[in-house]
Structures are given as C-alpha cells and as structure tokens.
C-alpha cells in the first residue's frame, strides 16, 4: 500500500487542464500551490484564456471561483467547457477583493482574480502565501497598466490576437508567451484558437 501513495500524491498535486493547455503548461496541469498570471491588454482575449483554464477542473468536479470579473459571459464560459454548477462568482468585490480572494482560496481549487485595483506587494505576497499553504491555484489576470507585483510560477503573456471573420466573427488566434519559474521558464510561444467557431479553446 505504501508504495502506492507517492503516485496518488503526484497526481493530486496537479489540478487538471484540457487541451490545448496540457501541452503548453509544464506537467500538463496546474500545480497546486502555484500562482499563474495571464497578462494581456484588455479586450484581446486575456479573460478567455484565464476562464478557459477552469474548464477541465470544473468538469472533473473541482470547485472554482472568479473574483473581480464584473460581467462574466457565462454562455461563453459554458462553451469553453466550464461546468457552471461549480463556479462561484464574486463580480464586484470592491475594496475587499483581496480578502474575498483569500476566503475563496480556502474553499475552492482555482481562483481567477482580476484585481479591480492595483495589487500591492503586500497583498500579492499574502495571497501567494495562502495559495501555497492551501495547495490551491491562483490565476491573476493582469494588464500592462497593472502588472502583478511579484514573480510567479507560470506566466501566460498574450502577445498577439487576431480574429478571422466571414459574415461574422468566426475565431480568434491568440499568441501566448509561456514563461515562469523552473521548467516553465523556456516554454516559448504558442498559438491557440480561442474561441473557435464553437466557442472552444483549441490548439492551432
């Protein structure tokens, strides 16, 4: 029995991702206790990237939370594979966003946070400590005017975004530079179709 334990632990140390993210992210999943930033200019697809990362986990029974996203497009989330039954939204946390995020880090497996105001060193430090302590995952959605103040484990930097159109918007290609600590440091650039014509995230 004892020999089985490490295997189980290794597996549960990752919160699951689906394609196309499994091949982009070191280890193929979100490591528990890690902080991820999704960095993008507003309106170019950063929110879709961050919420898409919740899809597989929620579908596999993990609870997730979304803090500071005022008007989540839940239809689009559902198309991205997010199981809405296990998503807690805190759309307008106002001044208490850091506290609300900390509360949620105790109870769910992934929190997506779009800080409504600039995140201070101290607040970021506290949240990242809590993430490590609780073995959860924090995905911070940041933009050029308000970068995350500390280095994190994994960064997805959206460097380009291009729509394809027919008689309507069909799909968008987003280019992501993957970086971070350790193995994540040299992951290079990837292009992901997000959303595709059916609203999903797929590898190009």
């Amino acid at each position, binding site marked *: 029995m004892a020999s089985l334990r490490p295997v189980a632990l290794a597996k549960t140390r990752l919160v699951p991702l689906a394609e196309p993210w499994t091949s982009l992210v070191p280890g193929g999943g979100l490591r528990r206790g890690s902080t991820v930033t999704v960095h993008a*200019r*507003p*309106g*170019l*697809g*950063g*929110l*879709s990237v961050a*919420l898409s990362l919740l899809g597989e986990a929620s579908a*596999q*029974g*993990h*609870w997730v*939370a979304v803090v500071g*996203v*005022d*008007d*989540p*497009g*839940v*239809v*689009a*989330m*559902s*198309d991205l594979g997010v199981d*809405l*039954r*296990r*998503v*807690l*939204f*805190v*759309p307008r*946390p*106002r001044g*208490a966003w850091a*506290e*609300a995020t900390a*509360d*949620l880090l*105790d*109870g*769910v*497996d992934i929190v997506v946070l779009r800080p409504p105001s600039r995140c201070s060193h101290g607040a970021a430090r506290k949240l990242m400590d809590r993430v490590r302590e609780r073995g959860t995952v924090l995905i911070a959605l940041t933009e050029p005017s308000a970068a995350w103040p500390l280095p994190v484990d994994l960064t997805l930097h959206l460097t380009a*975004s*291009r*729509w394809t*159109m027919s*008689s*309507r*918007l*069909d*799909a*968008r290609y987003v280019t992501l530079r993957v970086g971070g600590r350790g193995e994540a440091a040299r992951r290079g650039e990837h292009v992901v179709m997000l*959303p*595709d*014509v*059916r*609203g999903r995230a797929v590898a190009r």
Partner: protein
Amino acid sequence: MERLLALWLEPLCEERPDGSTLHDHLRLLDALASLCPFVEPVRLGLCVLPLRGPSRFFGGDEAVFAAVRALVRDVLDLDVSLGVGEGLFCAELAARQGVVVPAGASTQFRRQQPLAALGHKELTTTGKRLGLYRVGDFADLDPARVAERFSATVRVLHRVARGEIAELPGQRDTRLGARLRGARGEDAVGEEQTGFFGQRSAGDERAQAAAHRVRHRLGPDGVVVARLRGGRVPEDRATLTPWGSPVKELRDDAPWPGRLVGPSPITSLHQPVAVELRDASNEVVRMGARGSLSAAPTSLLLLRGSRRAISWFAGPWPQVERWWAAPRRRAHLQILLDGGEAMLLCAEAGRWWLVGIYD
C-alpha cells in the same frame, strides 16, 4: 419558452427489481450526451433535451429525430416515442402522443388536451360536471374563482393550464439524479467526480463554506452563481443569481443575442452601456426600419467621451420576435476595433448598446 425534445420510453417507466432500469437510463444518457450536452432525465422513461442547439448542429429537427431514434435503437434496442413542445408539460404530452408541436403552437396544443392531462382525478370529475373537458376550458376560468373553489394544488394546475408554469408539480422525479449517480458509482469504481447529479461531496461542503464567508464579508449579493436556464441552449439562457437564494426566473429585460451563431462574448454586460456609432462623415449610424444600417459605421463613441475606430463590422442581425414576450425589436451587430478588440452591440429603442466584449 424553449422547445424541448422529449423522449418517451414506455418500457423503462416501470423499474425492474434488478437495477437494470437505471443502468439502461445511464447508457442512454451517456449516448445522448454525444448529441447534446444538456440532456435531462425527468423521470424514469422520460428525458428531455433542448432542441434548438442540436437542430442547428444537425441541420434541422428531422435530422435530430432520426439521430435520436437510431441511437435509442442501438443502445437499448427500443423504439422511442418522440415529441416536441414548449415547456416540460407540453413536451411530455407531445412525446406520449408522438407529435411535434410547431414553434409557437404550444399554447394551442396545451389547450386542446383533455383535462385529465393535468393528472388530477378530482379536478377531472369536477371539471366534467362543470362542463370543462379540455385544459383550455379550465384555463379560461377566472383565477380568482379558481382560488375560491379549489385547493392550492388545483390552483397550481390552473397556472399550468394557463401556461404560467411550464411543468406539472411532481412531473420531475427529483431523486432520479441522485439515484442515477448511485447507479453510476457501481459502474465506475474510484471515479472521483462528484456533484454531477446534485450529490454533495467534501469539496462541495468546503466551497459552500467559503461562499458563506465571502457573502458575510460582502453582503447578500456578494457571491453569485450562474445558470443557463430552461432548455439551457446558450443564447438567452444565462442568469446570475445570488448564491444561496432560490434560482429566479430569467427576467427578459436585458438585450442579449438571440439568434447569433458563433462564439459568445466572454464579457456579457449585465447592464448594457449606451454607445454611439458614427459613419465616415461623422453622422450618427441608425438602424433603418427594414433592418439595415443607415451607413457603415467607422467609429464607436463610448458616452464617456472616448472614440475608437472601427475596422470591421458584421450584421445587423434582427432579433426574431418571440411569441411569449411583448414584441421587441432588436438587432445585433459585431464590430472589431482597430486595436483588435471585438464587441457585440445591440440596437434597441432607437439607440445602440454595448452588450458584450470578446475579451
């Protein structure tokens, strides 16, 4: 109201003692999930799915019916009775009778049903004495008079008859989901997924406790949950309700893409923001009476004063009016700004609204 495709499988209505009935349902539901992710087991022998999505995907209602029939035959070696109607009450009756009620005709269909369709013996006999033979006859009674004469149960049935409630009380077996979950557990030992059919796990409890704390911190509306309502075909079906409150009926007052195909915006404005569109000569772009634009829009003015150039647009797509709601004229337009941001606008009440951002 959503058009539902109901599958009526009479041989599965009676539960066999060996547990095979539940397993048959699981096999059927798993197979149907390949056609539509929103299949719902209602009771033993009855399940429903929203028709619109699959119909769009398969290229028509008939194609969906054919696919479902073939699938049921493959999986269970049974002939299924299919029916389509708006709301669960009509959908089940339609399936038992094997009829497809055309879109918008469900009121008429419901009214033509014998009073016994409401499934209340006393009401049926009393109704006969009063000369009420059809659901429509009963529906026409003044609610105040019904309230005087009848019990609370019958008052609810009256609302069903009038189309105010889409399903009969007790039409759904609320324990079926949990029972199917249990049956699935026997099949898939060690499968960790929980909560799919409403069962609660330790993870669920933990999340609920966290939600409690946040609500305590931020107030009753601090934490919200999202649902896709009714038939749960995406468009028109999103609703956000405070966590812990009973799920409210969807209010039909926010502009929302109704017939838009392709990806949905990941930001969907709860309260649409008024915007202006201007053409190349800085004239205001309006929706014409015949569903076309007065000119091609070249810039977007947010009323805060900022102005953005539009590099491309598509639409407008006029909204098809829906029979159950007060007529609303709406049209949606997709625009792409020169910075690469895509947005969804809606024209209503003589002006443009920003309703979605494809962030």
